[in-house]
């Protein structure tokens, strides 16, 4: 065979005459993307993704069909080529309807594959479920109990009746896994790099877990007596038994992570020292100081911060709160404080909140259980003055509020009703209105205007070369544990890259999302959400035993099978989304009419979703040319073209071999083998 010489992307290549550019590039390790080419079927040329530029040729060439020529100088990644591919992908995506990922996963700050593990739970594969969860989150038993579960907020099942109980299912699977045959990840070969992690809370533990898996040696330094951070010192026992947390931390430690407690930076060891001793330092110190409502009397004995209160309880310190307690705030910490106060023996516990129940940031179940436990809610009130006697709290004067105009966030802001006050007698006041970061010992780190550590949102870098920061201590300040975990997991990838000498900033992947309406689920059978069995109120208020009793296995499996499986089965293999992320596409520019199709199952063992079809016609050609059946055909033309098996009744059974070859070649998730 005659040989010719050409250059592809600056590389001199010898190729056989008659080879296509695509083939030739592939043989030389250069991947040219294509969606409609397959070696088993004839050339087609529809997708236009494989275009390349050849010097001296005015038009772009389709690499799948263009044969190499002597002396060709080809660029497979020039600006013009990239632009062309980008537009092609944007156009394709503008008529592609489907969810790459379920709303649960998209709304999870850590991007845990909820749909994936829910399905495994439904199949009774609990260990596999945990394995999947732990790709993103190393503390599922703990987080499953305490997470305010944005996944459930987004869950589409609520368009049918109620969301899937994703968080508790996670805790269920993780508990199962902790019982026996516990999953442990494989640890990569030793890289010789050392990472110090400051703070052993959810963020620090997560960063440690993933960096250790990559083969780095990891040490966690923590100022408290035990690891766990806010999970241990901010969340009461009745929500998260420390036994559970201990087990999960022990597992993480068992990976070979060194854990050093009672180490305070700037006191026991200097920050500079750590930076010198370790290749990278991760600051995950959280936000441990309580904010206070500044009012008269806030310095009286008996006034304390919510976080401080919970911490003291966790440390089993002796605290006097009296019989009547006012908790100021409407978040989960306020609920935790109020319910803890109740368990400590307080008879009257008030929650003072400026807005109404509807605006409360605390979770509904927390509010509900607090109400059950006899907590008294004083909505539309705000502390005006804390009164005292002999320097000790004896009451609180409340300003009565009303809701005014909505603010920029859409929440109606509370306004004082002039001259209207209310007084209640209390023995102590707990201020649970927010947390702030304590950066003592980290003086070199640059802070933002709010006094919070400033870290790049894509590289997690601080102003100091080898120092990274994640979690509550950074940028926007305190948030929920899963958000800190998500940051830590993303940061671990960046830090791993950094340690190996690469800069790989985090980039939010592009995903296709479908707009849905409740009408689309009108036909779905209503299956109520599994209710978590709980301890009786009487029992609850007497002890710190866990309120939730946990799902029974059959309930968990049944609950998991309610999942609508919104995300695409093909996400991991989908070439369309892979390429979309190569070229940073913005299909919303071309937003327009989309073809609407019903998902159909005419092909017996194959489900066809034409809304995801990109008309590469590989299925049609494979059925024609490889299987030699010709069951599928293109119907109509232009924008309305679709692919259909056009058969009546049971005719299809006589034709379709159910070989599944069509689904195998589909570059997207339009075809699914059932």
């Amino acid at each position, binding site marked *: 065979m005659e040989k010719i010489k050409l250059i592809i992307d600056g590389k001199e290549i010898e190729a056989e005459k008659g080879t296509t550019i695509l083939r030739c590039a592939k043989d030389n390790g250069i991947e040219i993307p294509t969606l409609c080419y397959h070696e088993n079927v004839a050339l087609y040329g529809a997708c236009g993704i494989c275009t390349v530029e050849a010097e001296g040729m005015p038009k772009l060439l389709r690499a799948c069909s263009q044969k190499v020529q002597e002396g060709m100088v080809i660029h497979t990644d020039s600006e013009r080529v990239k632009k062309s591919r980008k537009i092609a992908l944007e156009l394709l995506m503008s008529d592609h309807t489907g969810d790459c990922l379920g709303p649960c996963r998209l709304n999870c700050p850590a991007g845990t594959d909820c749909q994936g593990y829910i399905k495994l739970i439904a199949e009774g594969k609990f260990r596999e479920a945990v394995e999947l969860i732990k790709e993103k989150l190393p503390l599922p038993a703990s987080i499953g109990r305490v997470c305010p579960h944005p996944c459930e907020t987004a869950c589409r099942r609520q368009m049918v009746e109620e969301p899937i109980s994703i968080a508790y299912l996670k805790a269920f699977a993780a508990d199962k896994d902790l019982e026996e045959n516990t999953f442990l990840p494989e640890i990569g070969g030793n890289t010789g790099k050392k990472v110090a992690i400051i703070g052993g809370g959810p963020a620090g533990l997560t960063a440690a877990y993933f960096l250790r898996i990559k083969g780095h040696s990891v040490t966690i330094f923590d100022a408290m007596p035990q690891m766990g951070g806010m999970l241990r010192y901010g969340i009461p026992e009745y929500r998260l038994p420390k036994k559970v947390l201990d087990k999960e931390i022990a597992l993480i430690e068992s990976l070979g992570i060194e854990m050093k407690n009672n180490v305070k930076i700037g006191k026991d060891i200097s920050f500079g020292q750590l930076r010198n001793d370790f290749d990278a330092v991760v600051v995950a110190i959280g936000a441990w100081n309580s904010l206070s409502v500044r009012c008269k009397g806030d310095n009286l004995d008996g006034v304390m911060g919510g976080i401080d209160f919970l911490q003291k309880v966790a440390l089993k310190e002796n605290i006097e709160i009296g019989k009547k307690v006012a908790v100021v705030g409407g978040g989960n910490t306020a609920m935790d404080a109020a319910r803890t106060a109740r368990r400590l023996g307080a008879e009257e516990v008030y929650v003072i909140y400026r807005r109404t129940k509807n605006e409360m940031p605390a979770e509904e179940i927390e509010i509900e259980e607090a109400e059950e436990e006899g907590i008294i809610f004083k909505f539309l009130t705000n502390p005006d003055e804390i009164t005292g006697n002999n320097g000790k709290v004896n009451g609180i004067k409340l300003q009565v509020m009303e809701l005014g105009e909505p603010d920029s966030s859409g929440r109606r802001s509370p306004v004082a009703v002039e001259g209207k006050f209310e007084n209640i007698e209390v023995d102590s006041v707990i201020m649970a209105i927010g947390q702030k970061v304590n950066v003592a010992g980290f003086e070199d780190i640059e802070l933002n205007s709010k006094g919070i550590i400033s870290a790049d949102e894509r590289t997690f870098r601080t102003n100091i070369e080898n120092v990274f920061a994640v979690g509550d201590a950074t940028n926007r300040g305190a948030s929920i544990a899963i958000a800190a975990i998500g940051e830590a997991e993303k940061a671990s990838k960046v830090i791993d890259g950094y340690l190996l000498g690469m800069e790989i900033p985090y980039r939010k992947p592009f995903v296709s999302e479908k707009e849905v309406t409740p009408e689309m689920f009108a036909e779905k059978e209503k299956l109520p959400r599994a209710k978590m069995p709980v301890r009786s109120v009487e029992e609850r208020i007497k002890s710190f035993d866990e309120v939730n009793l946990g799902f029974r296995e059959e309930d968990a499996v049944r609950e998991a099978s309610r999942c609508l499986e919104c995300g695409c089965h093909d996400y991991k293999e989908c070439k369309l989304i892979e390429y979309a992320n190569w070229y940073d596409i913005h299909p919303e520019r071309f937003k327009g009419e989309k073809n609407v199709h019903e998902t159909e199952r005419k092909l017996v063992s194959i489900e066809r979703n034409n809304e995801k079809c990109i008309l590469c016609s590989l299925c049609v050609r494979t059925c024609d040319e490889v299987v030699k059946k010709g069951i599928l055909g293109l119907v109509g033309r232009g924008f309305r073209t679709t692919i259909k098996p*056009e058969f009546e009744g049971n*005719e299809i059974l006589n034709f379709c071999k159910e070989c599944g070859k069509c689904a195998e070649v589909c570059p997207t998730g339009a075809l699914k083998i059932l």
Partner: protein
Amino acid sequence: MSNCNCPKSDLTLLEDVLGKYKNIPGSLITILQKAQEIYGYLPTDVIYHIAKETNTTPAKVLGVATFYTQFRFKPVGKYLIMLCQGTACHVNGSEMIEKTIKEELGISDGETTDDGLFTLKNVACLGCCSLSPVMMINEETYGSLTPEKVRKILSELKEAE
């Protein structure tokens, strides 16, 4: 056609056409054109029959039939109004003509009046550009149309019924 829920067309009418063309490769479009001449449109059972006789699959036959605008899958009205969509017609006001037809008959492109009398079809340039705007009703071409002229033509056809 075992359990097919389609119309029962007289398939014997196709015998001559199939006899003549089915063994000539590449004749599918011709066969479909002849079939449409016979039945006025392409009923589902006819498509199936053609697929069977030409040794291909219904998916393929339908694929070809739906590609070309000439083929219809529903019976058309007694009067098929083909409204030219050419450039000259556009420049000379075919949009007004279409609007007038819609107003008069209450049908849009591709639709048939309830009485089965008229079908409106927008077609590619009829090549009578000097007479634009133009429409054809069955075999007859009407040129230099104005809304008034269209109303008159349509009412005359209606009255003739």
